C-alpha cells in the first residue's frame, strides 16, 4: 500500500516536553487497539469454518450418511452452540493448543511449528532483498531526477507491479532450472533453493518501496533544513545520509513492515510453485483437504503476525519521528 510522506514541515506553535509520557501512552493505546482487533479477527477466522454450511458434512465427505454426519458432529464437538465452540477454541489457542489436524492426526501446533522456519526464512530474505535494491535505487533516482537511473527505476517498478507472481516464478524456473540449469526448482535443502523464491516474493514489494523512497527523498531534499545543512558546509555524504535519508526513511519503514505482512500472505503462491514446506503451503493443502482446525489456526497466526507488524510499524514511526510522540 502506497502511503504519502507526511508533510514534515508543519510547524508546532509551542514546544512540549512530554517526550517520555508521549511515547508510553501512544504505545498503550496502540496495544489496546491491537488486542481488540485480534479478538475480532479470531472470531472471524473461526467463523470461516461455517461458510460451507455444515462442517460435519464437509468432513464426512460425499458418501457420508446422516448417521455418520451426526456422529462426526458429536466427535468433533460441532453440536455445541457456536459461541461455546469459539470460546473453547480461543481459550485453548491462547495456551498454544490449536486442536488436532483432521488430516495428519497430529497436534496442529506441532505441524505449524515444523513449517514456520521455512516461511520465516523466505519472508525475511524477501524483504531484505527488496530493501537492498529498492532503497538505494530510490535514493539515486531522487538525487538525479529524470536521469537514466530514474527512468529505469520507474520503468522497472511499473513492470514489476504488473507481473503475476506465480507466472514469474514459473518463468524463472524455466530459465534457471531448465534452459541453464543452475538453480534447483523446488525444495529447501540449501540456500540455493531460496534464491528464486526470494526474488519472486520480494519483487512485488519493490515498486512501492522504491517509489516511496524516491518521493520522500525528493521532498526532503527540497526542504529548508537541508538548505541549512548545506549552508553549514557539511559534506554531501553527511547531508544525504545523516540528514536527508533519516527523515525520508520514516514512511518507508512502516510501509516495509506492512509489505512484510503482505509477503507472508503471498507466500502461499510462492511456496506452492516452488514446493517449499512452509506455512503458506500448509494453508493451501489444508484448505484443499478441508482440514479445518489447521486452516483456522494458520489464518489466525497470520492475522496475529499482521497485527503485530502493523503495531511495530506504528511504534517505529513514533520512535523515528520525535514529533509524532507528542500527539
Amino acid at each position, binding site marked *: 500500500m502506497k502511503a504519502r510522506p507526511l508533510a514534515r514541515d508543519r510547524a508546532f506553535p509551542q514546544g512540549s516536553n512530554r517526550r517520555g509520557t508521549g511515547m508510553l501512552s501512544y504505545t498503550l493505546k496502540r496495544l489496546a487497539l491491537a488486542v481488540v482487533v485480534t479478538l475480532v479477527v479470531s472470531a472471524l477466522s473461526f467463523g470461516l469454518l461455517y*461458510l460451507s454450511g455444515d462442517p460435519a458434512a464437509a468432513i464426512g465427505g460425499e458418501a457420508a450418511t446422516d448417521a455418520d454426519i451426526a456422529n462426526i458432529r458429536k466427535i468433533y464437538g460441532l453440536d455445541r452452540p457456536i459461541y461455546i465452540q469459539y470460546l473453547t477454541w480461543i481459550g485453548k489457542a491462547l495456551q498454544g493448543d490449536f486442536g488436532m489436524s483432521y488430516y495428519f492426526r497430529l497436534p496442529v501446533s506441532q505441524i505449524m511449528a515444523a513449517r514456520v522456519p521455512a516461511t520465516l526464512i523466505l519472508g525475511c530474505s524477501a524483504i531484505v532483498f527488496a530493501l537492498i535494491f529498492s532503497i538505494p535505487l530510490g535514493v539515486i533516482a531522487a538525487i538525479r531526477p529524470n536521469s537514466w537511473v530514474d527512468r529505469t527505476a520507474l520503468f522497472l517498478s511499473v513492470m514489476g*507491479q504488473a507481473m503475476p507472481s506465480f507466472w514469474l516464478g514459473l518463468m524463472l524456473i524455466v530459465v534457471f532450472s531448465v534452459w541453464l540449469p543452475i538453480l534447483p526448482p523446488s525444495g529447501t535443502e540449501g540456500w540455493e533453493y531460496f534464491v528464486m523464491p526470494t526474488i519472486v516474493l520480494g519483487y512485488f514489494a519493490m515498486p512501492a518501496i522504491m517509489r516511496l523512497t524516491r518521493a520522500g527523498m525528493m521532498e526532503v531534499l527540497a526542504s529548508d533544513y537541508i538548505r541549512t545543512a548545506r549552508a553549514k558546509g557539511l559534506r554531501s555524504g553527511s547531508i544525504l545520509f545523516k540528514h536527508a535519508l533519516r527523515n525520508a526513511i520514516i514512511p518507508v519503514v512502516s510501509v516495509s513492515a506492512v509489505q512484510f505482512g503482505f509477503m507472508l500472505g503471498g507466500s*502461499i503462491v510462492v511456496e506452492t510453485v516452488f514446493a517449499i514446506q512452509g506455512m503458506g503451503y500448509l494453508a493451501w493443502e489444508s484448505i484443499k483437504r478441508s482440514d479445518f482446525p489447521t486452516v483456522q489456526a494458520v489464518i489466525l497466526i497470520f492475522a496475529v503476525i499482521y497485527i503485530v507488524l502493523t503495531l511495530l510499524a506504528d511504534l517505529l514511526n513514533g520512535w523515528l519521528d520525535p514529533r509524532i510522540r507528542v500527539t
Partner: protein
Amino acid sequence: MEFLSIPPVEEILGPSPGQLLRRRLFAHKGLMIGGIILAVIISFALLAPILSSQDPYAQSLTTRLSKPFWHAESTWKHPLGSDHVGRDYLSRLLYGAQISLLIGFCVALISGVIGAALGVVAGYFGGRVDMVITFIITLRLSIPFVLVAVAVVGIVGGSLKVVIITLGLLLWNRYAVVMRSATQQIRNQDYIPAAEAVGCSTTRILLSEIMPNIVNNLVVVATLEMANAILLEAALSFLGLGVQPPIPSWGLMVAEGKDFLFFEPWLIAIPGVALFVLVLAINLLGDGIRDVTAPENR
C-alpha cells in the same frame, strides 16, 4: 486610423478547463499507451466469437500440444498452439480475456461501492461514525486477505460467482481509505457549510457537492484495484481454488500448463504474457489519470 482585427473568442478567453484536461490527457504517453492497449484487449474480448472460429471448450486429442506459429511444426488450425487436451489456445486466450475483464469490472464495482460509501460517510460525518468505520478498516487491514480469499473459496467451492463476490467483499479497503481522506479535505472547504446553510439535505450534499470532486480519486483507485483483482483471481485459479476447469481463465491455463513446463513452455508463457499486458495497461491508465488530474500526487 488602423483597424485591428479582433482575435477569435477562443484566443481571448483561453482554453476551457475541459479542453485543457483533454490536452493533458492526450499528451500523457503512459495514459495513452495504457488506454489504447486496454481498448484493444476489450475489443478482442468482445469480438472473440468473430476472431476465432474455434470453440474454446472443444477438445481434440489428435491435435493436442501443437505448437504456436513461431515454431516450425505449427499448423494454422491452432495459430497459438493447443493445450494438453487439444483445445485451441487462441480462442481460450480471447475468451479468457472476457473472464479477466468481467472479474475486474465486477469486483471493482462491488468493492468500489462498499469502500467509497464507507469512506465518504466516515470522512463527512467524522466523530463516532468515523471511529467506527476506521476500526472496521483496521480490522480489514489485519486480515491476510490472500489467505482468507483462498480459504473462503476453498471452503465454499470455487466458481466465477464465488470469486467475484469474495474479492468484491474483501478488496474495498483502499477505496475507503482514499475516499475518506479526500472527503475530509473537501469537508473543510467553505462551500459545504454554504450548502448546508441553504438547506440542502445530506444526501444531496454528498452526491452533488462532494462526489464530483473526489470522482477522479475514485477512478484512479478503481483502475488500480481492478488490476489487483485480476491478478488475485489469476492466483486463485492457479492454486485451483478459483474458477474451475474447463472455464478458460488465464490463471487456470497457467496451472494446467504447469506440468508441461519443460517442453511446452508456451502453455504458460502465453496466458502469463496476456495477464501481464492487461494489468500493465490498466496500471498505466490509472497512473496516467492520477497524473493528469492531480499532478501533485505523483
